[in-house]
């Protein structure tokens, strides 16, 4: 299951999707909005995507993860729009016969999401200053 959503992410739904009686390992990763990074406060994070491409790339990541890590099912849901501290911004659920493959796949999927999926975040800090976050480049 691949989804971009402006709604609160229901992690139970992701787990239900990957549930399989033949799998003995289920890993669920929830990436949440951090209120403080060191002493810098984050008031909100707003996500924007090039949606058709983002969905397509997420589907490619899902397919590669299943093939590369020999896992069962994958769910990936990413928020769009405004998120507040503690809210889940991204959720990944993986099922597998054994735990090691599920942990490794989940970690790899998250790295790939950050690296190649056309999604961007606009962080607003405690002084209401908003900055687009662009790793490898000075933020704008």
């Amino acid at each position: 299951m691949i989804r971009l959503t402006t709604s609160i992410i229901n992690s139970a739904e992701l787990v239900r999707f990957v549930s399989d009686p033949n799998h003995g390992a289920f890993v669920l990763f929830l990436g949440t909005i951090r209120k403080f990074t060191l002493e810098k406060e984050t008031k909100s994070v707003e996500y924007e995507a090039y949606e058709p491409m983002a969905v397509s790339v997420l589907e490619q990541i899902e397919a590669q993860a299943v093939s590369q890590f020999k896992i069962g099912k994958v769910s990936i849901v990413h928020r769009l729009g405004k998120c507040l501290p503690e809210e889940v911004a991204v959720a990944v659920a993986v099922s597998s016969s054994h735990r090691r493959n599920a942990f490794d796949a989940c970690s790899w999927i998250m790295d790939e999401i950050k690296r190649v999926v056309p999604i961007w975040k606009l962080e607003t800090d405690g002084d209401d200053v908003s900055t687009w976050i662009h790793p490898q480049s000075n933020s704008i």
Partner: protein
Amino acid sequence: MNLENSVAHIEVLLFAGLKAQFQSSRLIISTMTPIAVNDLIELIISLRPDLSDHISASLVACNGQIAETSKMITEKDEVALLPPMSGG
């Protein structure tokens, strides 16, 4: 595909910080086509040399796929300029 050169308008979708800086979600570039991705990037930089670093750090997507710098683009392609991504 007809690769004869002609002047055309290429629409370039913008996102995130580049969209904010250009104050628009798209650019219309009038140019001879087909045009290589690399040359298209140079044209965009010529519009906003102050954003050269940010534009150079961006990738170009053509019809939803990351395009090599040598790929030739026409006005029929969906083109997007993707600044470094920050999902998750």
